[in-house]
């Protein structure tokens, strides 16, 4: 029987539930939502800064999950990655539509300034893929790594990143390109 420590959503359970969702089982959708919703909302919230648009994005994402569940197959990768993609795209679409970055000062709902680096005890380490990515991120220099992480978490454009980091747009663009390629080379080692 499982121990009582908090667990990562394990891919096998998520797949079972997602397959049931594809067969139009709403209880499976509830379980999938209960298990993954909080992680996915954290993503949307980090990008959109306020609860309401973030929860809207989460809601829209799960409607897409319901719709697209029959198209998911194991070859696409872990279920969590698939869900993350759907939520990020829903959030990015909203972010781009609003036309500008929401700064933290304008986001009264945020209680604390979030960190700009993955913390040492975070859940990335709970999966093999997470540990691999963390190891490869650590091989990058500090500023390019920060650019990658900020871009991913906050959905900033090149211009916004450049302004946030106090660097020219050209520098940021080439940092990102180079770092992404280095990450991939590292992951494929």
């Amino acid at each position, binding site marked *: *029987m*499982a*121990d*009582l420590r*908090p667990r*990562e959503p394990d891919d096998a*359970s998520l797949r*079972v*539930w997602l397959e*049931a969702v594809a067969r*139009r089982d*709403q*209880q*499976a*959708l*509830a*379980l999938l*939502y*209960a*298990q993954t*919703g*909080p*992680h*996915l*909302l*954290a*993503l949307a919230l980090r990008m959109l800064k306020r609860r309401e648009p973030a929860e809207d994005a*989460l*809601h829209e994402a799960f*409607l897409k999950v*319901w*719709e697209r569940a029959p198209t998911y197959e194991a070859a*696409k*990768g872990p279920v969590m*990655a698939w869900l*993350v*993609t759907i939520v*990020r795209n829903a959030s*990015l679409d909203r972010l*781009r539509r609003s036309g500008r970055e929401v700064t933290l000062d304008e986001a009264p709902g945020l209680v604390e300034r979030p960190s700009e680096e993955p*913390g040492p005890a*975070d*859940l*990335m380490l709970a*999966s093999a*893929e*997470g540990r691999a*990515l963390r190891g490869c991120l650590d091989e990058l220099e500090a500023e390019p790594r920060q650019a*990658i992480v900020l*871009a*991913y*978490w906050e*959905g*900033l454009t090149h211009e916004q990143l450049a302004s946030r980091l106090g660097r020219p747009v050209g520098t940021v663009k080439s940092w*990102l*390109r180079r770092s*992404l*390629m280095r*990450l*991939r080379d590292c992951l494929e080692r």
Partner: protein
Amino acid sequence: MADADDLDGLAAEYALGVLDAAERGEVERRLGRDESFRRLVEAWERQLAPLAMALPPVEPRPEVWFRLARNVRYARNTAEPVSAPSLSPSSAAARPSGRPWRRQLLFWRGLGLGASLAAAGLAAFIVLRPPPAEVRLIAVLHDAQAEPAWLVSARPGQERLLARPVGSLAADARQVPELWLLPGGDRPPISLGLLDRDGTVTRPLGEEVRRLLGQGKALAVSLEPPGGSPTGSPTGPAVWEGVLLEEPS
């Protein structure tokens, strides 16, 4: 015409989320017609996805689920709702040795669904309307063989929780069952009090716990020394577990 390297870089930037609206539109159009580009983008998304797990989870408000469940219900592809026998304590008492539950469990297991879903299949179907102020949450806690052992029902509006054993449990004075709420994410289990193998117990629900209780929340029962866990965290193994679901009105 973009060359292969450019396309790869574009795919990576799209997956990272750094493209502006116009660029995203271009990429999405290309995704629709270029299968190998789509696979490239999917590979990048997969590789970066673990970064998403580095953020601490945030509980959505209950209204988000209600809206979702309602909209899913109205979607064209909705099939028939999954129904289950009522779980009110009186009807449960009327069933000798819980046989109808066992049959339901076997049915769900045959579909290849996990024990949690089997327990969920026994409990009430999801409420699709915004709930009345007094929502009742029920969970059937089962062991690793999917044998039900505890029925828990909570009324957050009335600040109280009831728990009773199902069937007979082996008595053991040295090991006391203690009920835990698993809030999810990084948070440790919260004790909801000791249970009684011989009958129903009523437990008050503190404010923090009431806020945490809801659809889909996990419960577990561990075996502790007499008087319960001395540390405030589970010291024994989780012998039974289940998921809270809302009872339909």
